[in-house]
C-alpha cells in the first residue's frame, strides 16, 4: 500500500469524535483524564464539552476511584489514562471500586502495548490483558482499526458494564472499509475465510494477520483470520469452530505471551483434542526499545516473520496428519 493510501487517523482520535458526539446528547457522559487529554487526543472533547471533562491530575489511583463514585451517582465516565499505569498503578481500584462495586466505568488504556516504544518497560503495557481479564465483571476489548474503534465506542456509550479498552497510539492501516459491519461486544469477526490454519489476532495485530494471510496465498496456504476484538467475554464458539475447521491455530498479539490473547484462546482450546496452537507475542523479558515498528520487527510481529512461522506450522500439521 502506498503512503498516499495509508490511514492517518489514530484510533484515539476516533474515540474522541464518538465521545464528543455522545457527550453532546447526554450530559451524564464524562471523560476523566490524568494530565493525559493530549495523549488521549481528547482536547476537542474538552473544548466542546468543558463541563463534562474532569481533570484529576497525575493520580491514576484517584482517577479510577473518582470515576467509580461518579458512576455510582448515575454518570457514565470514560477514564483515559496511559495503559501502562491504568492497568497496573490503578488495578486495585479497578478491582474493588469498579469491578466489585459494579460501577459503570469505562477504562481506556491509551498508548497501549509498545506504543511508547522507546520509553522503556515502565511505559510499555504488555501485561494489561492478562491482569484485566482475570478480574470478574470486567470486559476487555481492543479495536483493530479506526472503523472498529468507532463501532466499539458507540457500543460502549450504551453499555452498562465496566470495561477495559486498550488503544494504541499511532494510526493503523484499515482492516475494515467502514464501521457498519455489525460490531457486537463479545462476538468475534471472521475477517477472512480459510482452511489450512486460523490466525487469531486482536488490536493492532489483526492487520498483520490479514497481510500474512494474503502473502501466504502465493504459497497455496489458505488462512482463516479471526479478530477477537473482545477478549472478555471471549467468543468461545467462534474459536472452537475455527479450530475444528482447520486443526491449527496461530495467535498473535502485542502482549506478553503469558495470559493475553494466546492464553485466553488456549483456555478455550484446552477443551478440544487434536488442535495445535502456537502463541506469538512478546517473550517474557523487558521488551527491547525503539519505535513500535522496530519492536514489532524485533519480535517477529510483522507479516514476513509471522508468515514464516505460520508456514512451518502448516507444514508440521500436514506431516502429522498426512493431509
Amino acid at each position: 500500500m502506498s503512503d498516499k493510501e495509508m490511514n492517518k487517523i489514530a484510533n484515539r482520535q476516533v474515540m474522541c469524535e464518538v465521545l464528543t458526539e455522545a457527550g453532546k446528547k447526554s450530559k451524564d457522559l464524562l471523560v476523566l483524564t490524568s494530565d493525559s487529554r493530549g495523549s488521549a487526543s481528547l482536547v476537542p472533547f474538552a473544548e466542546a464539552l468543558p463541563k463534562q471533562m474532569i481533570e484529576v491530575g497525575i493520580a491514576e489511583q484517584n482517577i479510577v476511584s473518582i470515576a467509580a463514585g461518579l458512576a455510582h451517582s448515575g454518570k457514565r465516565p470514560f477514564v483515559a489514562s496511559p495503559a501502562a499505569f491504568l492497568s497496573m498503578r490503578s488495578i486495585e481500584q479497578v478491582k474493588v471500586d469498579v469491578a466489585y462495586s459494579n460501577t459503570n466505568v469505562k477504562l481506556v488504556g491509551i498508548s497501549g502495548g509498545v506504543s511508547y516504544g522507546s520509553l522503556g518497560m515502565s511505559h510499555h503495557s504488555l501485561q494489561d490483558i492478562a491482569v484485566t481479564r482475570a478480574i470478574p465483571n470486567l470486559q476487555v476489548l481492543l479495536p483493530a482499526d479506526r472503523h472498529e474503534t468507532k463501532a466499539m465506542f458507540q457500543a460502549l456509550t450504551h453499555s452498562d458494564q465496566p470495561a477495559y479498552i486498550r488503544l494504541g497510539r499511532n494510526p493503523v492501516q484499515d482492516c475494515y472499509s467502514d464501521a457498519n459491519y455489525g460490531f457486537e461486544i463479545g462476538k468475534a469477526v471472521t475477517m477472512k475465510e480459510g482452511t489450512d490454519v486460523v490466525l487469531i489476532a486482536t488490536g493492532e495485530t489483526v492487520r498483520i494477520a490479514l497481510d500474512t494471510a494474503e502473502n501466504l496465498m502465493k504459497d497455496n496456504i489458505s488462512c482463516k483470520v479471526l479478530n477477537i476484538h473482545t477478549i472478555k467475554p471471549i467468543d468461545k464458539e467462534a474459536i472452537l469452530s475455527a479450530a475444528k475447521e482447520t486443526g491449527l491455530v496461530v495467535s498473535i498479539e502485542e502482549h506478553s505471551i503469558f495470559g493475553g490473547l494466546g492464553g485466553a484462546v488456549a483456555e478455550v482450546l484446552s477443551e478440544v483434542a487434536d488442535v495445535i496452537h502456537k502463541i506469538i507475542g512478546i517473550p517474557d523479558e523487558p521488551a527491547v526499545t525503539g519505535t513500535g515498528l522496530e519492536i514489532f520487527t524485533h519480535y517477529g510481529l510483522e507479516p514476513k516473520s509471522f508468515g514464516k512461522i505460520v508456514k512451518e506450522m502448516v507444514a508440521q500439521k500436514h506431516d502429522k496428519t498426512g493431509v
Partner: protein
Amino acid sequence: MNELQKKALEIRKDVWRMIKNAKTGHTGSDLSCADILVSLYYHVLNVDPKNPKADDRDRYVQSKGHAVEVYWAILADKGFISKEELATYSQYGSRLIGHPNNKVPGVEMNTGSLGHGLAVSVGIALAAKLDQRSYQTYTLLGDGELAEGSVWEGAMAAANYQLDNLTAIIDRNGLQITGKSEEVMRVEPLKEKWEAFGWQVLEVADGNDIESLIRAFETPHEEGKPKMILAHTVKGKGVAFAENVAAWHHKVPTDEQYEEALVSLNQQLEVLEK
C-alpha cells in the same frame, strides 16, 4: 441525647454478640467508631430504609470497612435489614460479610481495602455538584489508614473541586494492629496536614461523645471547602478491659469476657435510664 447514648450502648451489645458468635470481627475498631455511626444514622444522615436508593438520600461510604459489625448492627436496627439476619454474619453464603457489601440495602459501595473510600466519595460528591443536587456525602476513615497514599490523592482532589458537600471523619483512636499508630507510621500533625490540603478541620476532643460529634456535623461547611472531623476516640470504647488495647483490634471475646462486657454495658444503660 440520652436516647442516642442508649442506642450506642445497645449497638455495642450487638457488636459483642455478633463477634462472639461468629468468632471473628474487628471489636476494637467497631467500638471506637460506634458513636460516630450512631450520630450519623440516628441524627445526621437523610436516609430511608424503605427507599434505600432514593435520589436525594445522603451517601455514606465506610472507608475503614473492617469495622463492619457495628455497621451491620445499625443497618439492622434502622430496618435496612432484619435483626434476625445479624445472626448470619460471617456465615457461609451470608451477605453480611466481613466488610461492607453493596448487596446489602443501605450500603453504597464495597470497601475493605483501605484508602479507597475518600476518593470514591469525591466522585459521589462531585456528581452532586455537577447536577446541582443537594445530597451530602460522608466517609469514615481510620487513622492507620492515613498511611495509604491514595487517601492524600483524594484529599487533594476534594479541595481542588471545592467539595463543600463532602464530610470526612477520621476515627482517631491512635491504635492499629501492630500498636500505636504514631509508632507504626507517624501521621501527625493531622489538623495542620488536612488544613494544608485545603480542608476545613474540626477537632472533636472526645470522639465518643455524641453531643460533641453532632455539633461538629452541624457546623456549616466553609464555602468551597470539604470538611474533616478529626474525632479523638478510644479503641474498644465501652468495656474497660478492651479500651486502648491494640490487641483488641480484631480480638474475639471468650465467653467470660463476653459476659463481663455485657454486664458493663448493661450497667451503663441502667445509669442512663435513671
